[in-house]
């Protein structure tokens, strides 16, 4: 870990050391920033765009009085990234109607089913009644996985091991959950990626049939540029409203998620950092950016 990390913490040290930033330091700092972002899996073009816009902003104006040029540059870098990620305030999670319906989508193995369980856990703890629906007819044992999670949480669920019709399962599940009078319905779906046309068509059909209040894309933080490429592909088929970022217990920096946010306009709401249902928290942009920069 140590050797490949932290060009930016070094960079921060570099500027902290310097009282005034000359042309050479500026170039060096921006170059180090580029390296840090590239190591964090941020898209190459996006990296160059970002550093360019930071440089332009830095050159445009004198730092506000009383602020040194180094602090000003650090502030610009940090601020730029924070604003991309949606600002410093913690993610807002609201159920604007009852029942509120969430559709979970994402590539294979990204962590959808586990994250469905985590969201159910999170909202249950807030006092809401949550119901889970499994529409994955592709992966063997998918319904057992969801059932076992729901049983652990002691919440209502709907699965149908004998059906191959995801839309039908979703609709029957909705009906059952409405009767159960839950506040939140989370619909889990099979994993799929942008080259699987049939499955992409299926997700559209599920979306059209259930008209969810929110579509949550589940992104594996250990993925590279495909995080954003896949996010875009999903967003072309169903509107991606928010992101659940998983496997943050890895050492990954999450640059793929940053690019996904830029490409889809969706915000990250939840972060998963372990295999247990309790390993979930609300997204915090400050923490995210610090990690992205290796601070």
């Amino acid at each position, binding site marked *: 870990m140590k050797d490949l990390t932290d060009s930016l913490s070094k960079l921060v040290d570099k500027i902290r050391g310097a009282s005034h930033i000359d042309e050479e330091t500026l170039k060096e700092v921006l170059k180090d920033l580029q390296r840090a972002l590239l190591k964090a899996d941020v898209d190459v073009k996006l990296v160059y765009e970002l550093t360019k816009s930071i440089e332009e902003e830095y050159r445009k104006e004198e730092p506000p009085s009383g602020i040194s040029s180094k602090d000003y540059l650090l502030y610009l870098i940090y601020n730029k990234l924070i604003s991309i990620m949606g600002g410093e305030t913690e993610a807002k999670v609201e159920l604007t109607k009852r029942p509120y319906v969430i559709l979970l989508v994402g590539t*294979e193995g990204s962590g959808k089913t586990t994250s469905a369980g985590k969201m159910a856990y999170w909202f249950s703890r807030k006092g809401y009644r949550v119901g889970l629906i499994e529409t994955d007819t592709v992966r063997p044992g998918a319904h057992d996985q969801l059932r076992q999670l729901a049983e652990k949480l002691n919440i209502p669920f709907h699965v149908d091991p004998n059906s191959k019709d995801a839309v039908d399962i979703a609709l029957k599940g909705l009906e059952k959950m409405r009767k159960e009078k839950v506040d939140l319905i989370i619909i889990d779906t099979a994993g799929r990626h942008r080259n699987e046309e049939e499955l992409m068509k299926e997700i559209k059909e599920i979306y059209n049939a259930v008209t969810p209040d929110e579509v949550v894309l589940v992104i594996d933080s250990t*993925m590279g540029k495909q995080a954003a490429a896949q996010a875009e592909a999903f967003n072309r088929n169903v509107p991606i409203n928010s992101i659940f970022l998983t496997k943050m217990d*890895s050492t990954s920096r999450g640059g793929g998620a940053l690019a996904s946010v830029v490409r889809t306009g969706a915000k990250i709401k939840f972060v998963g950092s372990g295999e247990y249902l309790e390993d979930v928290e609300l997204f915090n942009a400050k923490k995210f950016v610090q990690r992205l920069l290796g601070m």
Partner: protein
Amino acid sequence: ELGEKEIEEVLNDLMNELLEYDVAFESAEQVINAIRSGLIKVRAPRFGDKTAVVNSAIYEAMLDLLRDIPDMDLIQDMQTKGKRPYIMMYLGPNGYGKTTTIAKVTKYLMDRRFSVVWAAADTFRAGAIEQLEGHSEKLGVKVIKHQYGADPAAVVYDAVQHAQSKRIDVVMIDTAGRMHTDKNLMEEIRKIHKVATPDLSVFVADAMMGNEALEIARTYVKYVPINALIMTKVDAYPKGGSVLTLLMELKRPILFMGTGQGYDDLQKFDKSSFIKQLLGMEGMQ
């Protein structure tokens, strides 16, 4: 000869391309350095198309980087080792495709008249045992299992016993996914490996991985030997550069690539066509 400036330009473009396709930063730098020395030797024609000469120099240099990685054929390895049962242990981070790959490789071996038994050594993740059983019903394979929460090493032990008494050719061990940062789980995989003494320890990696591939590979090998790699979800990302990261870092052969969710979506890996594809030189002779 190529001018210094020309070479740096070519290398700069290539670096960006490698990064774009998710070769880890450090690995991409290694590639660039290796290619630089190759390019310095290139004699480019004074007139006409330099690209072809440059491309072939890049291709040769990359192939050279992977030269010391042996090719591997599963059946051949089974025959060479001549063991029954031949024990394969599958390991890797969460959700990368271990269980599905076991089903595919089993189908591959059954098509070639080998008998297989599975050890359900993922006793942790919800639905893990039922997932294996679902595949086993379709393929007609026996699953040796215990309860959830049971010691995975005990399941492995039972499966090997079963294979020995029933004269089954191959045991496949499905271990739970684990993040390299979880020291307890990494110690556990070390222990399972000790008990299993596999003939082939297979690391299952996702073609969509980014820079984290490097960290994962480096940590995994500290705990458990890796003899071969299988890249999954290549259908989602045929140009996935993590293949190169892992090859360079682990120096182990790629046994198969997973190219879909079906049982037959399994392909052999070929170094030279992978490099050509990564470089966008598919047409090259």
